[in-house]
């Protein structure tokens, strides 16, 4: 029994460490990159993969209860909102005449 619990703890901890790694990557990327699309890419990575790994780790650590359902709903909501927000930001960038690397396009007419 204890062996099984140790295995569960190790798997959960590894997943949460991976999620923390992605979140830290997202934070550093937000400061490090120079333009909106690159920063958005970094933040989107943290908001999807990092959140998923963190919450799956929490699920494994907590076990089955009502909170499992709540955690799954939170992940679903974040997965539905965050990529759409990134998509809209990128769309606005392109519609306002920015190239993917964040420079203003000089339209020669």
């Amino acid at each position, binding site marked *: 029994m204890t062996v099984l619990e140790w295995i569960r703890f190790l798997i959960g901890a590894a997943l949460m460490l991976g999620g923390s790694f992605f979140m830290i990557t997202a934070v550093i990327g937000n400061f*490090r990159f120079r333009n909106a699309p690159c920063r958005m890419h970094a933040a989107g990575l943290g908001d999807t993969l990092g959140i998923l790994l963190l919450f799956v780790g929490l699920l494994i650590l907590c076990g089955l209860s009502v909170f499992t359902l709540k955690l799954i709903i939170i992940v679903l*909501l974040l997965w*539905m*909102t965050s990529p759409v927000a990134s998509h809209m930001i990128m769309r606005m960038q392109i519609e306002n005449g920015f190239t993917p690397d964040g420079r203003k396009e000089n339209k020669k007419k």
Partner: protein
Amino acid sequence: MKLPRFLAVFLNWVEGEEVFPVPEQASGPFHSERIKKADPKKKPQTPGRKKDHSKLLSALYSALSVIVCLTVILTLLTTVSWLPRFGGDHNPVENEVYTRYVERELEEAGAVNTVAGMILDYRAFDTLGESNVLFIAVCSVIILLRADRKKDGSLNIPELESTPEEKPDDIIFRCAAMILMPVGLVFGIYVVLNGHLSAGGGFSGGAIIGASMILYVRAFGSEKLDKVFTFSTYKWITFAALITYTLLKTWSFYTGANGLESGIPLGKPGAILSAGLILPLNICVGLVVACTMYAFYSLFSKGGFGNGQ
């Protein structure tokens, strides 16, 4: 004080400085035009007097900021050191207000959520003032930003009439809004109605409802909502909510202060229909907050809401 070298390098790297040399031949759309950092040695020389002035100012600014920060930190630390120890023997335990709230709240106000009992029962006029502040803020914004109409119904500012409303024709955004908007509305209503039983209440639930309405308008345009939600609807909803709040709470305070029987049943703690007046007051506050959020959005984005007057 000097930072260790690796730490300084790491901090500079996070700040965005090019710590490691970048090969100049890196090409492709994402590498070709790196923003080159201006070399500090090649700064265009400004006239000496002006440069000294700005330098002095920036030095003064940094010194002042350091002094202010240190003063605040020292003050806070001194205050903290004067606080009684946590769980100590000689702490002042005779805090009657909080004892009263914690011990008697359930039988006096009937709300399981003690915070709701405090803000909507003991301190209900404070919350009424907050709701009134929202109403007055929207009134001021209407005075300032509403686009005037001429007698024939056209806008006074022709540029507003000619620019079509920004409605991104985006299938991804629309699908997400279609799924999320009803969920948000239902969740907001749940938070308002459940405010006396769990965390939540009128302000947070109203904010969720208002955000769902804004999401709907962003995704699908405001033609359909404009037919329902006009200026007069807004006026009457807010007015009715505030008047209901005032009358209910005045009755409750009047009878309570004079030792009369108020006749408001407290119900069974834990049930939806319990906690006396807290549920209707929560609904009033939620209505005001939801309408205010939507009104702010539409006033700032297109100068009005509702068709016609």
